[in-house]
């Protein structure tokens, strides 16, 4: 018996997946031409699955700042934030993020994954109660594994279920900490944050919102869903990432709570990993400046989201109601989804393939994410390729039967 035999089920699922065509987890681009185009196997393809919401990965000011930072401070910090790994750039970036969100304090982490892992697992200690949305990102689930608190899942986007679960805890000691996301990364739906904030106020709890996919995209100033729906005062902690709208890598958490900075000496995923290199800190700082001053970026990604969403809805695909930058075509038949994904790539459009159990409700998803950098012509081309391919393979007829008889949530 091999040490890997525990993964036999995964192996056979993976083999059946790759026997149908390409390995969706092993795509290697030869060249990235722009935020919206790449070369794969010598062919130019359109990128519609990159989370590059504002298209800032090739922003000239960010690139220049990054190169300058490498020349001045070197390629890496070679140390953690609590040892030799904090330079003035890290501190400046933290002040700038706090300012962007209108908060007293900010902490920068090395990845968005670590921001959730660190913040959630450290805040929720033994005797506390973490209440997480059932469709939470893997980083939130992993934070729960690292936490000594009791973990309770509430039904996805269901404030009444959350309230019921909080009520069951009545009389028990310990803090209640609610975790949800602004924009859910798989289906592209938003949390009912006003209602969740009301439950939080009524029942007495802390509220953490992960704005990884909504920062720069939602809210008048790009501060995410909490800003868009006017509940920032109820959100105790916002977590986010530099790897999407800000076009680099890294994570952060912001808060107004007075003792927030204590986390710097108790939060292990912050303390025991090397800090972000100067080049990343510099490009993120430049990109954050850009989104704080350029309102057109957010407006453009929203207009592009509506264009893609309208196109796919008019073609007859089963997608969500909300026109957000993440838009997922839902397919009940896993093999059909795999075939569809391969055919789309062969026709020059890259999207993400997401399969159960990584998806809600055992659905397979062809997930697109749209960018402010997409032109209207690129979106229209992608929509017509997706619609033509979907019609040829029978995805549209499969979707039509599901739209006619929606499954109970």
């Amino acid at each position, binding site marked *: 018996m091999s040490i890997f035999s525990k993964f036999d089920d995964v192996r056979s699922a993976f083999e059946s997946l790759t026997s149908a065509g390409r390995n969706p987890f092993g795509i290697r681009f030869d060249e990235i031409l722009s935020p919206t185009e790449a070369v794969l196997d010598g062919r130019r393809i359109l990128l519609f699955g990159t989370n590059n919401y504002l298209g800032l990965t090739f922003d000239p000011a960010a690139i220049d700042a990054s190169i300058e930072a490498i020349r001045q401070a070197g390629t890496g910090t070679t140390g953690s934030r609590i040892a030799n790994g904090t330079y003035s750039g890290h501190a400046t970036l933290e002040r700038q993020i706090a300012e962007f969100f209108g908060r007293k304090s900010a902490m920068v982490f090395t990845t968005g994954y670590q921001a959730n892992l660190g913040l959630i697992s450290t805040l929720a200690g033994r005797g506390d109660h973490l209440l997480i949305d*059932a469709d939470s990102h893997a980083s939130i689930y992993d934070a*729960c594994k690292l936490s000594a608190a*009791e*973990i*309770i*899942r509430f*039904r996805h986007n269901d404030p009444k279920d959350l309230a019921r*679960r909080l009520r*069951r*805890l009545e009389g028990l000691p310990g803090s209640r900490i609610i975790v949800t996301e602004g924009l859910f990364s798989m289906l592209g739906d938003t949390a009912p944050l006003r209602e969740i904030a009301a439950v939080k106020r009524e029942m007495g709890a802390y509220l953490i919102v992960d704005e990884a996919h909504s920062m720069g995209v939602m809210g008048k100033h790009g501060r995410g869903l909490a800003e868009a729906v006017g509940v920032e005062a109820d959100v105790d902690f916002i977590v986010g990432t530099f790897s999407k709208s800000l076009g680099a890598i890294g994570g952060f958490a912001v808060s107004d709570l007075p003792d927030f900075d204590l986390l710097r000496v108790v939060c292990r995923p912050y303390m025991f990993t090397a800090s972000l290199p100067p080049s990343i800190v510099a490009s993120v700082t430049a990109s954050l400046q850009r989104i704080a001053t350029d309102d057109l970026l957010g407006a453009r990604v929203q207009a592009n989201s509506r264009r893609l969403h309208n196109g796919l809805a008019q073609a007859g695909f089963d997608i969500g109601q909300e026109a957000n930058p993440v838009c997922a075509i839902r397919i009940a038949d896993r093999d059909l989804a795999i075939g569809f994904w391969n055919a789309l790539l062969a026709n020059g459009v890259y999207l993400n393939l997401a399969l*159960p*159990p990584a*998806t*809600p*409700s*055992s659905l397979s998803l062809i997930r697109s994410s749209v960018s402010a950098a997409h032109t209207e012509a690129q979106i229209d081309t992608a929509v017509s390729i997706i619609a033509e391919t979907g019609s040829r393979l029978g995805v549209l007829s499969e979707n039509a039967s599901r739209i006619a008889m929606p499954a109970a949530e």
Partner: protein
Amino acid sequence: MGSVILANQYDNIEAGIVAVLEARVAAGAQISPKAKIARDLGLDSVAVMDFVMDIEDHFDISIPLDRVAEVETVEDLTRAVEALLKDKG
């Protein structure tokens, strides 16, 4: 006398779990106390978590994730629910 009542409660819990489970598994699946919920009854990990939420609603309890992780069979789940109902008083 007390043990009879407890035994009855255990049976009631088990019957409730089986009823909720029947709605989720393929027709003809053999649901027994020793049946492993994921392996024998063909539920994937997300389906198991959805099933657990149905159980939570049915008994009006929350089953913390670490307790869920210890559950493999219908019998394990029955005991976990029984313990949580007892805590609730």
